């Protein structure tokens, strides 16, 4: 078991290395030169080639790509993701300042998704084939299909403009996190509801459920105490992975709601070709995502004793 854990944790290292290569390549191979962008930002008149070259030299952008990658990676390993071209602040400090805001709506979105998805999925499974099931499935399909920017505007129209309950944008104000979290969460709820339904239907068809029913247990106890426990295992795994998606999906939602999180930071950094910030963001989010994936995998071992025992047996032989 410990060996398995160790292998899984060590396997993150090549994964992170791959992410670092992608992060570096994606930002550096995009059209547009950060030195030119910076020179234009800092100058009222169009900058000369000499001025651009000076900036390029200052930020060591004139070195070959592999050399720059090695320098960046070397520093990143020591916990230094560089400094933003735009603000001159350490990238890690910028990410740390903005990440709580993104975490806030992502956590809210997850809570909303689960609150909606679990009862909906269970109801759809228990009342399979009824109008309730069909409605839930159509709702889930809609939730998964609607683009978040459209949903965001719709929610603003209903809850901010129509009802006046919630603010339109920004992080100030009562309930400011609710609409961005709801926009993010509804999409995730659709996925989780469909999964809960499918998973529960599978478990409800198993022998131990038939036994439970034969023993005279009422349907409520069969579903909520026996079936749901088994059905939630894949749901929990997907939930952990979905959380990573929610963090990433915040990029669009933060733009709509002027939410001061890392998503907005990334968009501005891309516009400015702020390489250290883009690279730092991709690496940081990539690491979070891979760790969440690992947590999801390990949660199987933790929750399902059958899998844990199988691993232990394999380790003994």
């Amino acid at each position: 078991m410990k060996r398995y854990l160790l292998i899984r944790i060590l396997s993150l290292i090549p994964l992170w290395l791959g992410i670092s290569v992608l992060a570096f390549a994606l930002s550096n191979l995009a059209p547009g030169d950060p030195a030119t962008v910076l020179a234009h930002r800092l100058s009222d008149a169009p900058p000369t080639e000499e001025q651009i070259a000076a900036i390029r030299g200052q930020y060591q952008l004139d070195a070959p790509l592999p050399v720059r990658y090695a320098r960046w990676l070397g520093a990143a390993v020591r916990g230094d993701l560089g400094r933003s071209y735009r603000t001159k602040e350490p990238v890690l400090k910028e990410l740390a300042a903005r990440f709580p805001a993104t975490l806030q709506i992502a956590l809210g979105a997850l809570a909303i998704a689960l609150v909606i998805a679990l009862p909906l999925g269970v109801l759809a499974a228990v009342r399979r084939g009824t109008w309730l099931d069909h409605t839930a499935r159509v709702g889930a399909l809609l939730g998964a299909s609607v683009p978040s920017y459209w949903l965001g505007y719709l929610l603003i129209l209903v809850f901010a403009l129509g009802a006046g309950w919630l603010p339109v944008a920004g992080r100030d104000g009562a309930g400011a996190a609710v609409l961005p979290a709801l926009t993010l969460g509804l999409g995730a709820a659709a996925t989780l509801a469909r999964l809960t339904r499918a998973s529960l239907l599978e478990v409800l068809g198993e022998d131990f459920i038939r036994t439970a029913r034969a023993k005279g247990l009422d349907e409520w106890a069969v579903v909520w105490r026996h079936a749901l426990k088994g059905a939630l295992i894949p749901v929990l795994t997907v939930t952990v992975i979905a959380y990573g998606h929610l963090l990433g999906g915040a990029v669009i939602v933060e733009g709509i709601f002027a939410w001061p999180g890392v998503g907005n930071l990334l968009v501005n950094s891309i516009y400015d070709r702020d390489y250290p910030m883009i690279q730092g963001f991709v690496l940081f989010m990539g690491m979070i995502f891979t760790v969440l994936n690992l947590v999801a995998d390990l949660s199987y071992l933790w929750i399902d004793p059958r899998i844990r025992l199988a691993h232990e047996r394999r380790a003994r032989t």
Partner: protein
Amino acid sequence: MRHRADHRYKFFATSLGLSLCLVLFACCTGRRTGTAHELVIGARADDYIIEPLKSKLGMYPLNVQICEPLVRINSDYEIEPLLATAWEQRGDTWRFFLRPGVVFSDGQPFTSAAVKYTFDRLVRGDRAGTYQHVYLDENSVRVVDDLTVDITPARPNERLLEQIGHANYGIVAPGNEPANAPVGTGPFKLTEYRRGELIAVERNERYWGGRAPLDRLTFRFLPDDTTRVLALQAGEVGMILDAPREQAAALRTQAGMRVVEAPVGRVASIFLNVHGNAPHDLLANKNVRRALALAINRRALIEQVWEGNGELVAAIGPRAMLGTHDALIVGFAYDPQEAARLLTQAGWTPGADGVRVQGGRRLSLTLIGWTEFDTATLEFVQAQLASIGVELRLAKSPDTASYQARLEAGEFDLDLEGPNQNDANPMFLPPLRFYSKSSGKTIRYFAPGGRFDEIIEAGLAATTRDEVMRRSAEAQRLLTDEEVIVIPLAGLKRIYALRADVQGFIPHPSLLNQRWDTISFER
């Protein structure tokens, strides 16, 4: 085992509960609402530079009137006294007489030492050559006495007075670094800045001029156009900058709302790559360029695409910059028949698919556009040129960096831009992109050289405003009517939407010179 499993599910449920609590906690943070004497304004994205020595926080690109320059640019682009009450030119030196009795918002007296500190700071931070075109260096500013200061540019600069009304030259208190918190003499002082979220100012009670009617102004950065409009409609902000033109008509009809248009402060123009390398060398022929200019129906563009929010113009900048000389520029009438005739005369005949060809080469051009221009505008130009047999490939850039990369590499035939006129210098726009001795990597694609350069040099050296306006008009006539290097499409009007009770707002053609200290609420 069952006991342990139950614990796991309880943990899961608890985590879920905690998440909900977190969201509820977030809901309980204090709400920022406008008070009776506070106006909240929805602005576009926060684009302030906050790097020390470079920072123009509160000044550029959104001037919230914390700092004031020596002179002010009024809405007719005329110079008015501000921190300097008078000035005179002695050879290459400009002498400014400063307003007495002015104090900074922190109580320091405003003297010529502050002017020297401000300009020296700008020069020290001039790594990228920001002040190159103003020609200031570390020896340029000399304190004569407390209220007199001499500015001698490193090389003669007749345009200095017209240039230093720009918000970049806002005077800061000696020792102040605006990256931390700008301290100026303006009608407002900074109270809060949250990067990417808001900048808030309150009335400077020590202000030398008239007392601002409002206690506080908060500029909230709402980059998304639709969100900005929705925030106005929901009453979260009392006014929005840069209301999207497609929503202006709806806002006009909404009860309790007003839409205000600023006079034209910039012109959407197509710049033609006349010195491009193959395949972008088709516009070397002047008849082809003239045909393009005649084929675009500008009135239809304004009415059908821009919903009336534009103005027919012939020049490349605001009319006010040319005085009485704007009549020198004739412009182009819409005449597709003549356009077709010119193309035929130039040897381009219609091919099988309607696109003109010559020697096996198609008359196919690439149009790039500054990011703010929407696809509808680009497609309109495309359709207009298609009607005379010109194929136009649209290369809309997703962001400024990729646009600049394409522009500087010369991978275009036509470039749609709308440069702002933010200072009072009539000789700002013509040399900016077309004077062969100007800085910038794109000059080589546009510069006509020869007589144009002579006009620019005469304009830069002109000693009267009328003379410089005349030279600017001559330069623009050469760029448009004569050489067809620029095709002006229409003057762009900045659109503001505000609550009906917001009074006293006088839109300036340049947002950078917009005054906020005239705004009040209707009683």
